């Protein structure tokens, strides 16, 4: 039995905020022959279960809920008549951009695309990845799964809740479960700082008197069938539990909000190289991976805090893919972008410039490796100081951005490598 193959200019994997923004931008840049494939039965991705507000402040200058934010892009996609195939799971992407997919309507089918944009998003780290000891009872959920049960299915996963990890989804769920009548006993964070947004710590924990245990972790899980309790202990500077510091919590639910992992299994199959710092592809400033014609954007590239930035980044990726399809590729110099002291996961990892004078700036996104206050963000080109910015506060929980302006790029015409670093004192040259 042969597999039907369809030629297409642009194929986008995923109709979450990243895929939709990329599709809209590519379409507006003149790409008409495109398709978006989405494994869920709806567009909008994980936004659809994020019914709290706080989305869109940067992009739309107003506070929207997740579904409201998604609807704006979904409406645009409809107006632009961009085909989005939901309920369609991509099974493989090859380095030659052959994509196989399956759905109920067409069965197994394939596309040959001129360009592919990977926008699969991320998944939550499960319990096993943390090796939390104890029984393997029911009642342990990743926070996002619990959010789906509550917000999309209309069911509560339990009554008495402990949350491990202070990632944003965990914080949001602390509030959500409380509002639905559950008792949230504690939010437990391994690190001495939260990995969530400050506004969520205030609005989701403090406003509801939910204690946050920093430098603590869950060291044992009890309950043979359903969870009956967890043991929490303080950790030392090496993140090892301190004996004698154990606190017992009687609870029937443990939510894990312990990190998100870009979902790059399809990318790996296409031969895309993955950065250990971001768990996403290495890309240039056009969001092209090491595989020609394969682009990546959104949480599959690196985990964002705010969807607004996902949309902005993905629109750039959509424009870049459109240019690639038209045969426009930059012919200027290439600069490597490197993480220096105090900086982790800078994206993009390389910059490809057009020839001649630069006219547009390039945003570099990164996270500090720890909390810094009154520190200096330093950009160096081949060792020479390019930029130093004073920062009041920088935390791993909030992605930071620095822009390489055309002026900066033009001032260092020979730079082959740019390094970002964070210094406690003002750098001298």
């Amino acid at each position, binding site marked *: 039995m042969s597999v039907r193959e369809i030629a297409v200019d642009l194929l986008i994997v995923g109709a979450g905020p990243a895929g939709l923004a990329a599709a809209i931008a590519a379409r507006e840049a003149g790409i008409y022959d495109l398709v978006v494939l989405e494994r869920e039965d709806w567009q909008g991705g994980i936004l659809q279960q994020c019914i709290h507000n706080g989305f869109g402040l940067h992009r739309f200058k107003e506070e929207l809920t997740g579904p409201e934010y998604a609807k704006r892009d979904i409406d645009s996609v409809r107006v632009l008549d961009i085909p989005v195939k939901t309920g369609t799971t991509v099974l493989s992407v090859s380095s030659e951009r052959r994509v196989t997919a399956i759905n109920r309507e067409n069965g*197994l089918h394939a596309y040959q695309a001129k360009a592919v944009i990977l926008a699969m998003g991320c*998944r939550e780290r499960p319990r096993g990845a943390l090796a939390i*000891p104890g029984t393997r009872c*029911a009642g342990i959920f990743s926070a996002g*799964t619990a959010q789906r049960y509550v917000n999309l299915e*209309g*069911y509560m996963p339990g009554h008495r809740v402990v949350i491990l990890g202070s990632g944003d989804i965990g914080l949001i769920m602390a509030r959500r479960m409380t509002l639905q009548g559950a008792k949230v006993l504690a939010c437990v964070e391994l690190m001495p700082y939260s990995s969530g947004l400050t506004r969520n710590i205030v609005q989701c924990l403090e406003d509801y008197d939910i204690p946050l245990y920093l430098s603590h972790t869950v060291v044992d*899980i009890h309950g043979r*069938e359903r969870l009956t309790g967890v043991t929490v202990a303080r950790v030392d500077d090496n993140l090892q539990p301190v004996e004698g510091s154990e606190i017992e919590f009687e609870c029937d639910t443990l939510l894990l909000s312990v990190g998100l992992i870009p979902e790059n299994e399809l990318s790996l199959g296409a031969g895309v190289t993955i950065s250990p710092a971001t768990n996403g592809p290495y890309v240039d400033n056009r969001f092209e991976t090491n595989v020609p014609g394969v682009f990546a954007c959104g949480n599959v590239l690196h985990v964002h805090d705010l969807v607004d930035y996902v949309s902005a980044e993905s629109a750039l990726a959509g424009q870049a893919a459109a240019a690639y399809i038209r045969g426009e590729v930059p012919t200027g110099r290439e600069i490597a972008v490197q993480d220096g002291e105090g900086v982790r996961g800078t994206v993009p990892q390389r910059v490809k410039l057009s020839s001649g004078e630069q006219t547009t700036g390039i945003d570099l996104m990164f996270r500090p490796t720890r909390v810094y206050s009154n520190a200096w963000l330093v950009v160096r080109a081949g060792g020479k100081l390019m930029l130093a910015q004073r920062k009041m506060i920088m935390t791993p929980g909030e992605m930071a951005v620095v822009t390489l302006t055309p002026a900066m790029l033009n001032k260092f015409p020979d730079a082959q490598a740019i390094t970002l670093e964070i210094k406690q004192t003002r750098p001298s040259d």
Partner: protein
Amino acid sequence: MYDAVIIGAGVIGCAVAQRLALYKGKFAVVDRAHDVSEGASKANSGIIHAGYDAKPGTEKARLNLKGARMFPQMCAKLGVLYGKPGALVLAFNEEDKATLEALLQQSKENGVPGCMIIDRKRILRMEPLVNPEVLYALYVPESGLVSPYEFTCALADSAAENGVDFLLGRHVTGLEHNGSHWMVRTEHGDLACRAVINCAGAGAEPLHNSISTKPVRIIARRGQYYLLDHEYPLRFTMTLFQVPTLMGKGVLVSPTTHGNLLIGPTAEDIPDGWDAATTRQGLFEALDKARLTWPSLSTRTVITNFSGIRAHEANGDFVIGAVEGAPEGAFEAIGIESPGLSAAPAIGEELGDWVAYWLGAARNPSYREPTPIPKAFGQMSDNERAAAFENNPDYGRMICRCEQVTEAEVRHAIRRPVGATTLDGVKRRTRAGMGRCQGGFCSPRVMQILCEELNLDPTQVTKFGGDSWILSGELADGAEDLA
């Protein structure tokens, strides 16, 4: 009245049941768990041992060899993946080499073909990631792999297809012989039977001792494991043992039939045979010991950890046959620790035949050969996938993205003769939820299908039966407005 009741729905109980189904009679398997394969049979290394390890002359040695030889054909009939990648037993010092020599000698006495001692150069050519400090290894070409729970579920299906009853979620509380027949006492009523067969694994001791004048001692020996995600190319293609210790075969690093890597087990004797919790110390020890085999081992791709309970009989051998010192009609297969999985087909055959002979049962003329489990979507070629969809459009809807499990397979798992009734049951039969996200994405979908197929409310769906509920109830109010 049943002709025979088997206590325990692990691999041994199911293998005995599948063999008994060859004969005419009324048979049942009873287990306190709500599914088959919920004890040691779901949490072990999944190795089909070649048979070099067991002392010559023991039941372990004899049945291991016999069982391992039965595996390839049995798995083909049942539609269960089986592989024979071979194994290495690694020696890191001269003292260990003497142990290898002894194992080699033992392999010859036991009749294991093809074993040889090889040197470092050859080891590293076969498995480049092995610790380069290795000196020698026993190469065991006949070492195989199976998914123990897939195998157990398939045996149960075959037995059930031939009329064996599976009475699950029924805890056996006692055994009595009333002069003419046996009464198996359970929390949900008694089962009368002519023969009773104790295959209760870690729970076998009290049953045996309640009916026999010759008590046994079963020690619960816990083993903790790590499971790593599948990565291509495979980091290791063979099963890597270290030299065995008094407590067992030591910590191994092995691929599984599905391309994951398994690390473990530890060996700790514990007082409670049902305590399959992992511990901080045990998990540390498993990794620490595995690093002797694989120094560059990283936990980056760990997807889960678990423990299983081996039923170690104090004298160290399998105890199989009629229960000594008990009234007529009592049989057992107890103390079935490693190489119990490897020996299971042989134990099933011998004990099944033995009980049938004792019952005087004739061959079942309407016996049906097993219906092979359909090939998993994740294992299919593109052409096979296209064809599967033509026959059943449910193959077009992906349920588990990590393991590529489709709706067709989840529905099939629930509709099998001993079908899945829980999330874990679906997981063991299809791998939905077995992958890197550990059910984060697929469990709501699997739950929905369970509700449709079994006519359940979502709050009635459990992880593995009993009180292992997933959802406590509907939202208090306004739930429908939120979706």
